[in-house]
Every structure is written in C-alpha cells, then in structure tokens.
C-alpha cells in the first residue's frame, strides 16, 4: 500500500536481469543443483508461512476482494449491499452519472501532473548523476544532501513548502519580488501556478532518489567501453549516445516505471498544499478515490475507479516495457 508520491522503497524494484534469473532457476543445471542441496519436505513452507499469511491477507486477497466490492452498490454505512454487476463501471463512462465529472477531472489532474513530473524526474536527476559521475572530493556529501528531502517524507515536505509558497508571506514570492519578478503569484490556489508548485515540490522531494539510482547505473558501465569509444574517435555527445544510454537502458526502464507509478500515486502534496484547489482542479485520482471510498463510504464506486486506474497504469507499464525492450541490432 504505497501511498505517497514516490513509491516507497519497499514497493520498488525489479528489472530484466531478475526476470531472467527467475525464469532460469528451474532449468539452469547449476542453479537447481545448488538449491537441491537444501531441500526437504515441509521446511520451505514453514519458512514461507509467516510472509504468505500477510501476503495473502493484505495483498492477494484484497486485490480480488476489491473486484468483488466493485460489483456491488457498496455503501459502508448501509446494511444492504446489493449486487449490481458492472453498473459501477458503466457509471464511470456515462456522462449523466454523479461520479462521471469529478472522476474524470481527477484523472485529468493526475494526467497533467504526470505529463510534467515524469519527464522532469527522468531528465534532471540524470543530469545531476552525470555531473556527479566521476571522482571528486565531497561527492558523497553532495549525494547525501540531494537525497535528504526524500528521507523526510511527503508530509514534512508539503507542510514546509506550503509555508515557503504562501502567496503573502512566503519566501518564494519574496525572493521573486527581490529579483524584480511578480511577487504575488497564488502558488496554492490558482492554476497553472499550482501545477508548477506541485510538480516543482515533487521534483525537489524525489530528485535525489532517482539520481542515486542513475548514479549506481552509471558506475556499472565499464570504463573500457568509454575508452574504446574514445579510441574510435567518439566525442562526448557520441559516447553519451552510444555508450552511456545503451548501458543505462535497464536502469532507465526501472526509473521510468517507478516514476510513473509514483506520480500516478500523487496524494500528499495535493492533500496538504492545495487541498485540491482551485475547486477540485488539483485533486488527483487517488485522492478522489480515497475520499469517495473512505470519506463518503461509496466503496463500490471507489473500487471500480481504482480498478479502472489500475488498468490504465498497467497498459502504461506495458508500453514502457515495449519502449525499453532489447532491440536486436
């Protein structure tokens, strides 16, 4: 249940290499010989049981249960929860239902946010990582500083920036005024300024996270490849295109996936900084779903919405995998 804008580390991580390893455990003779040295009846299941209990009760079970809920007119506060088939889904696509407009507004809000935050969070951290990808004094210190906001969590970051972005007394407007720029921007109550604020704060918060992953990926590219490119007469931009980018491909795919899922889950920034304002323009999909299900207790509607959002995100993931697939030379 990753709920903040960056998926928490506990929800992260896989890449192709692991998939290969996964599929090869059965067929690779050395792997099976290794594992076979420690096999034995009930032992593996005894080890697995505590985890599997949690996993089935709070991950697999709910994923299925949620679909069942979405097929009912599930008002938490009422005794009867009649089966309604796909009605809850149909409502999301018929413009005369009550949920139609706010739901698609919230999907649009999530879409606008992702449109700007994902590219920025892919490019800026890469630039930072490239600048940091060589030996120099203080490198670990800079890395630690850029990563620090991530450690603080979304609540602290959002409360802090709501203060800094306050239209009247905020530091940001005063600095802008000092530079002779407009000093009365309503960062938290009017679009498009609110989008700039939400995206900017998110970039500030998670830049270090992506940069650290990129940096590890860059350091994994063998120096001999750069050396070979140099011998072949490649200039810096050529060696970036033909050595760095291909070498970074799995890491890029991973960072893209993680950033998309994180941005799609944007909640805390909007909840604490803009409260969805103006109107519900910056109320994101997950925010609207949580409010519908857990505040208005229309759980059937909310479950249907979360399934629809999940399908959209899964399609997006497939597209990303396809985009980053290993191309045959």
């Amino acid at each position, binding site marked *: 249940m990753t709920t*903040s804008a960056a*998926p928490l*580390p506990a929800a992260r*991580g896989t*890449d192709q*290499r*692991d998939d290969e390893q*996964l599929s090869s455990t059965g067929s690779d003779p050395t792997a099976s010989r*290794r*594992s076979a040295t420690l096999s034995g009846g009930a*032992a593996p299941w005894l*080890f*697995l049981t*505590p*985890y*599997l209990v*949690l*996993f089935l*009760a*709070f*991950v*697999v*079970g*709910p994923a299925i249960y*949620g679909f069942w*809920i979405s097929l009912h007119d599930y008002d938490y506060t009422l005794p009867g929860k009649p089966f309604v088939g796909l009605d809850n889904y149909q409502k999301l696509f018929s413009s005369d239902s009550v949920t139609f407009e706010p739901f698609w507004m919230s999907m649009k809000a999530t879409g606008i946010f992702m449109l700007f935050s994902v590219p920025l969070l892919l490019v800026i951290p890469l630039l930072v990582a490239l600048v940091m990808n060589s030996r120099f004094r*203080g490198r670990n210190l*800079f890395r*630690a*500083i*850029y990563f*620090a906001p991530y*450690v*603080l969590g979304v*609540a*602290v970051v959002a*409360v802090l*920036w*709501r*203060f*800094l972005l306050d239209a*009247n*007394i905020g*530091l940001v407007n005063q600095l802008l005024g000092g530079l002779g720029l407009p000093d009365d921007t309503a960062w938290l109550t009017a679009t498009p300024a609110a989008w700039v604020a939400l995206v900017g704060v998110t970039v*500030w918060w998670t830049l270090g*996270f992506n940069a650290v992953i990129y940096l590890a*990926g860059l350091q994994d590219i063998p120096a001999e490849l750069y050396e070979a490119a140099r011998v072949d007469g490649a200039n810096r931009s050529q060696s970036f295109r033909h050595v760095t980018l291909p070498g970074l491909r799995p890491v890029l795919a991973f960072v893209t996936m993680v950033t998309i899922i994180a941005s799609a*889950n944007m*909640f*805390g920034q909007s*909840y604490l900084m803009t409260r969805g304002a103006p109107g519900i323009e910056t109320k994101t999909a*997950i925010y609207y*779903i*949580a409010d519908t*299900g*857990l505040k208005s207790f229309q759980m059937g509607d*909310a479950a249907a919405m979360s399934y629809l959002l*999940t399908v959209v995100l*899964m399609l997006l*993931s497939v597209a990303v995998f396809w985009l980053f697939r290993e191309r045959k030379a």
Partner: protein
Amino acid sequence: MATQTAPAAAATPAQPPPSPPRRAARSAAARYVALVALGLLFVSPLLFMFVTSFKSRIEAAAVPPTWIPKDPTLQAYDSILNASGTPVLRWFVNSMIAATSHSILVVCTAALAAYPLARMSFRGKNVVFGLIVATLFVPPVILIIPNYLIVGELKWLDTLAAVVVPTAASAFGVFFLRQFFLTLPLELEEAARLDGANTWQIFRRVVLPLSKPALVTLAVLAFLTNWNDFLWPVYVLFSPEAQTLPAGLSTLQSANNVRYDLLMAGAVIASVPVLILYVVSQRFIIEGVSRSGLKG
C-alpha cells in the same frame, strides 16, 4: 589588490588557449559551483524550517523574513506540545512504536521467506516467487478500499495495528534478501550441514549473521517507509491520540491554518528522528536504494 591584478593582466596576452589540465581545472570549478548552488536549493528550505520553528508567532509571519530569529523562543514547541487537540508527543511515540514494529515484522517475515526461495528446491517455488514479484507491478491504489474493510473486520481501525501490519508483506524485502542470500558462498552452509546443523540452525547461525548489512538496510528502509507513510494513516486513524506524525501534521495544519511557527515546529519534530537515522545509516539507505535499480 592592484599588485596582484597587474601581473595577471600582463600574462594574459601571452597565454595560449587553455591547456588541457587548465580546462580540466576550470570544468572542475564549474562543477563545484553547480553542485553547491543545487545544494543550497536543498539545504536552505530545511534550514528555514528549523529557524522558523524558533520564532515568535509575529516574527514567523514577518515580511521580509529573517534568517536568524531576533528573539529565539521555544513558544511554538511549548504551545503544540501542550495543546490537547494535537498531542504531538503522543504522535511521536505512536510513530516510533509503529515504525519499529513494522520494521521488525518486515525483516523477520521477508528473511524467512527469502531463504527457501534462494536455497531450497520445492514444488511451487517458481509460482510463489513469480506471484510475489508480480505484485511489485500492481499499483497500490487497488488495495486501499478492500484493505480498509479487512482492517475494519479485524477491529484494527483507529489503532496502530492498522498502519503496522497490512503494509508489512514487503515484496521488495523478499526480493532484496533473496538476491543477497544468493551471493553468499554455499560452502559455509554445506560445512555447517556436515557438522550436523539442521536447516533452521544453518539459517539462524550461518546465513543471518553473514547477511547483517542487507538486514540492516531493509530494516532502515522499512522504518523510513512506515514513518513517512501518509495516505493510509490519514484515512484509517481518526482520533487525535491515534495519529502518527505525518497524519498528525495534517491535523495540525487544519487546526492552525497559517500559524507557520507551529507548523514548522511540528515539521521539525517529525523530521529530527529520521534525519538522525539518515545521518547514522546514510550508507545503508543510499546503498539500498541504488541497488534497487540494479539488482532489484
């Protein structure tokens, strides 16, 4: 001043285009300037948060803002720590208990599950592991509604169990530790077996002690994740005494709309433990995160 400038100016015309070492020095300097500028962008907001928390109500809202409090005061801390609607100290204790128990639960269950997945062969192993890996790609939004109902059935709503247990089935944790166990030399486990150790003893006395760095990394990441979790606690904890710090900050914000002195004091209280943890275990946190991109 003048004496220093003159020779430099005289030397300029004779100077050929920058030689390679010179250019390198210049680009190193440019890099430092860029990194320091970026660093300021990260440090100064945090610094301003700390500074503001020690200001009086009036100074916190002053225009132009001050970087050094004219009259440093603990007023803000005093008033939020004593307000009955926002028991910040209680939130702090709640967060500590929740994050610590969550972290222990994650490390224990993930380590136990990862070991057979790394070292034993059994029917259904690939199915189990495949299922766990697959959940890494399932957007968490899908679990919010059903988990609320499940937590409600368990009578956990408005209690810390609601924020400790449901999120503890960490697919990342199993994945991360399995990866680590696979890198351990098998000979040690074989030697222990020849000495008559059973599977549990091997796990407990050989594998776990060798895995300390990975276990610490996972423990710290799980602690941070839980400490900072926001959406879930906001919706499953309602009474003021039950909140964790991030959820409480949101309550504090609604109760004191533009009392930025109070809000910054609350933010500082929520940050200090994780910042200390970060300074102490920075190596583990950053290692853990960077490895998530390479090996899972």
